[in-house]
């Protein structure tokens, strides 16, 4: 019985060791996947579609969606939540893939990482300079609560948080429309359609 227990524990440890992903390796592999797509000789739309698949697998879209809503998320009913998260996913994927698809063959090197706590690790990377563009520092806030499946929660470009910018953008739309969530729904819908 004792032997079986030891084998089970050992197997479990090995299993966890094999499948837990280090945040810096996760970022580098995500970046490499995106880079491969961007360097392919395919149309911009095809690139965007391929990038959307990468984003769905590596970004905590639901978490970012909740964060972006700020305090407004507390006032949503179940139906509004469902509408919002559907709209947000479409908006996010379009915005994310569109931003990235402007780059051709970007080279990003992961430099270091800093574990903040068991839930978060910051991975530091650099977008290598080209004759047209200076070097850009990009930090990734990785959610590591489930070490086997790390997720991107924010990109901090030259010290500027994209999640924070998005949250403030959403708050501005809500403030300009007396807090009506429908106005945000419409804006997100219009963005995804155009």
């Amino acid at each position: 019985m004792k032997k079986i227990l030891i084998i089970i524990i050992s197997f479990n440890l090995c299993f966890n060791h094999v499948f837990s992903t280090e945040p810096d390796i996760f970022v580098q592999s995500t970046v490499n996947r995106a880079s491969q797509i961007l360097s392919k000789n395919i149309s911009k739309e095809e690139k965007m579609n391929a990038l959307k698949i990468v984003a769905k697998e590596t970004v905590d879209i639901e978490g970012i969606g909740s964060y972006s809503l700020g305090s407004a998320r507390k006032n949503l009913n179940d139906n509004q939540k469902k509408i919002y998260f559907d709209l947000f996913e479409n908006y996010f994927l379009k915005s994310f893939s569109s931003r990235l698809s402007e780059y051709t063959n970007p080279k990003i090197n992961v430099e270091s990482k800093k574990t903040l706590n068991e839930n978060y690790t910051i991975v530091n990377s650099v977008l290598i300079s080209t004759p047209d563009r200076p070097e850009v520092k990009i930090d990734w806030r990785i959610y590591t609560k489930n070490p086997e499946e790390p997720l991107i929660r924010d990109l901090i470009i030259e010290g500027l948080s994209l999640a924070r910018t998005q949250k403030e953008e959403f708050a501005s739309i809500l403030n300009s429309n007396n807090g009506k969530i429908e106005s945000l729904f419409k804006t997100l819908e219009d963005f995804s359609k155009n």
Partner: protein
Amino acid sequence: MLKKLIVTIICIFLLAFNANAGSDGELALKKDQQQEIKDCFEKLNRATFALNHSLDKVLIKPIAKGYRNLPNPIQKGTKNAVTNLSTLITIPNNILQGNVKTAIINTGRLVVNTTVGLLGTVDVANKMGFPKYIKEDYGQTLGKWGVGPGCYVVLPVLGPSTVRDTAGSFVNALGGDPWHNVSVHGNNEFLSEKVFLTSKALSGVDFRSDNLESLDNLEKNSIDFYASLRSLYLQDRENKIKNNQRGMVEVIYKDEEDWEEIDNK
């Protein structure tokens, strides 16, 4: 004399207003605390932003695009020269922020680049291994001293700012910018107000040229371009005041209970 007096009065007014508007009844001079910066004049700001945006489309952006087509050495030389001129504002601010060593290094940089570097067009200091140059201004110094940012404002032509940063800019005109002093009030045959304004315009065009793609990308992918720029400007100023170019995660997510709440859901 009258001009200086007016600028001084505006400066005092702005700083006094800053303490009130930024505090909303609470203490305004708290250090190292992320404050929510209010957009007190949002309607006016959005109108000014629309005006600036139109001006950018018809004038500044086309000029920046043309500038981008100039030979690389000309662009590089212009960038180096306007950066070298900015050292004249950085040095007194280094001292005011208590960084005397950095002020000495930047003075050395200014001397080397202005002389050996042919009026700053060649960054010789960089090639000699001087530490990386970081710009400072009076708005940053006020921030470092603990003055709150006050309300967010959009200035005609100049763009995003805060009441504190606008007040800081007035210090330049009050004698805080040696380049302004010698070119506008220097009474010499080589420099004039026109030369000063040209240098400022070139600095603006160079900045716009550096950001052609990134601003286009941001505009295209924003659902509220005005709010995006406001957020990015305020984050950037916060980083500059804290002298942290990479941003401090502890600052970005300070007082940030949203994520915790989402995680515990």
